[in-house]
């Protein structure tokens, strides 16, 4: 019984990490309308930015927001220069290829700058473990859980209550209508993109101390992000959270009680099942075609 509870807790904190990545992806997917295959690259950049700061002695808790800011700047530049041009370009699959190529380029650049070896990110919570009621949880993961709840909560509130937030929702639901009502659609899209990749960068900075950072760390984040987003529903933030928790717990349960070697296939099986029986995801809108 204790093993089951521990496993569920493991799944929960695992899902919290996934949620931050996924919410960024779903924002971009839902509002900008592109599948951001460079999401993993921004995740990695967040981790590396955090490393650069902490290795120079910056306190971890200060390094995290600065890393996010760095990723925001890079994201802004990327969106303005590259994404816009290819998004409104000729071929409708342009954004997919561009973001994919961008991701590859970033990985190659990281290898050239930092080398292929993994690097540690120091966090004061790194080595300590909390023990509550016989359940082990590492302090860093509790921190991630807290951040996750905070980020998702703030984002949800902002989207629902603030003017800009509601504009973002409007653009997601009906870009043309939003344009006609005077909303600056291109800038809203930029905002959404930047927010989305900022979330990825945050996740990278948070997960760095747990897993060390290395150039291809983005691949895992990318796959997780997409599977969670499809599961939870494209463009839905509660869906991202829900999907993330579901994935986290499912992975933990499967890995502990069924089979370790086949666990990587689990996510995809869930995705295929979702697409077969409920294509819009658990909490998504029933709308599949994107233009």
């Amino acid at each position, binding site marked *: 019984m204790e093993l089951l509870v521990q496993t569920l807790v493991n799944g929960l904190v695992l899902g919290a990490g996934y949620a931050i990545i996924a919410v960024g992806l779903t924002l971009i997917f839902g509002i900008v309308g592109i599948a951001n295959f460079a999401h993993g690259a921004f995740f990695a950049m967040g981790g590396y930015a955090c490393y650069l700061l902490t290795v120079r002695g910056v306190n971890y808790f200060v390094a995290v927001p600065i890393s996010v800011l760095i990723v925001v700047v890079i994201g802004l530049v990327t969106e303005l220069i590259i994404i816009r041009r290819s998004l409104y370009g000729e071929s409708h699959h342009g954004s997919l290829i561009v973001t994919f190529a961008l991701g590859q380029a970033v990985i190659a650049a990281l290898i050239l700058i930092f080398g292929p070896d993994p690097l540690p990110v120091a966090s004061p919570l790194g080595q300590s473990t909390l023990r509550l009621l016989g359940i082990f949880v590492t302090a860093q993961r509790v921190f991630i859980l807290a951040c996750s709840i905070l980020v998702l909560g703030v984002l949800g509130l902002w989207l629902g209550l603030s003017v800009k937030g509601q504009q973002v929702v409007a653009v997601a639901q009906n870009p043309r209508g939003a344009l006609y009502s005077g909303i600056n659609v291109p800038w809203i899209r930029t905002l959404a993109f930047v927010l989305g990749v900022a979330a990825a960068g945050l996740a990278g900075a948070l997960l760095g101390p747990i897993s060390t950072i*290395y150039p291809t760390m983005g691949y895992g984040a990318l796959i997780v992000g997409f599977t969670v987003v499809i599961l939870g529903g494209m463009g839905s933030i509660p869906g991202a959270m829900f999907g993330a928790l579901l994935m986290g717990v499912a992975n933990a349960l499967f890995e502990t009680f069924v089979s370790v070697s086949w666990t990587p296939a689990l996510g995809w099986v869930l995705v295929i099942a979702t697409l077969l029986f409920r294509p819009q995801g658990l909490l998504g809108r029933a709308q599949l075609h994107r233009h």
Partner: protein
Amino acid sequence: MKMTRLLGTIVSTMLVLACAGPAPAADTVRIGLAVPLTGAAATYGQDMQRGADFAAELINARGGILGGRKIENVYEDDKGSPQGGVAAVQKLISVGRVKVITGGTNSSVVLAESSVTKGRILHVNAAAQADAITEQGNPWLFQINNTVSLNSRAFNAYIVGVLKPKTVAYMGENTEFNKTVLENLKESLKAANIELVNVSIYDSETNDFTSILTKIKASNPDLLYVSDAYPSRAAQLWKQVRQLGGFRTEAMSPGVITPGMLKPAEGAMDGIYTGEIFMASDPGPEGKDFIESYQKKFNVQPGKGELVIFEAINLIAAAMDKAGTDSDYDKISKVLREGAWQTPRGQLKFDEKGRAHAPYFYIQRVKDGKLVQVERTKAN
């Protein structure tokens, strides 16, 4: 006009390839090294480059071989894939005009390469460890590093005989290397009546081991045995082990711990037992010279990667010299098999499958982020 462009591309291709490769100086004996210069194993490739260049330098300083001819290393990137290895070896043979192929860290890659070198050229596999490579029965194929089984047997003897755990849990990445490690472990444990309470095999993308470790903890083993050769993942793994409280005794598959793994682990690997064919910090009398001169030149101690390629180059050169030829591979192979060779590891001999046997095996333990020798056992 599309055809014109296509033709143009083809003609220029042909011109370029026809002019590929400079004519080698007639005097040098060229040694081809297919190593990973890119990809996950790139650090091993770089280590090999250093070790090989160092060996060539020393040999040439002593006057070269075969009547004063210098040896020259030619490198090609195997890209860590079998196809890359095949292309690298083909290029080394055709364009590089080398007399022997060496290098090799990844077993699948070396297997692919061996199908190209078979019956064509001498192939000295420096580091790849799969037993299958030398099981093929190629008379011109030799292996310097211990096979997985040789390493495992030596290390398991220590576990069973000295550490004596009552129960053992195993976790490892899903690779051929680790599968062989597991099989050997199972055999050794069974023979000693030690119970293997848990086997967890994960894939290469895994970087979160909490579930696995939780499950293992629940079965409460005396010893945790981890088999993973990939530095970043191993470092993460051990950090997570530490965060969950660790285990009474911890061991890691022999031959995989490198500074590149210990550094990012930041102390999380302290206390782990492992084994290796060679130790820079306590090499025995035969190794002292090698360590000192290497350290003097590069300001860092040589690891196993540098060692095996150093030995490979030296053995190739010495065997060619003794056989009096750089291309009669039957003769060179015979010389290699019949000889007893002085290397930094002591006296090396080859068996009929082409595998090198060194006199010693080292049991090590990690202390303060460094490998420390526990015992020097006699290998067979």
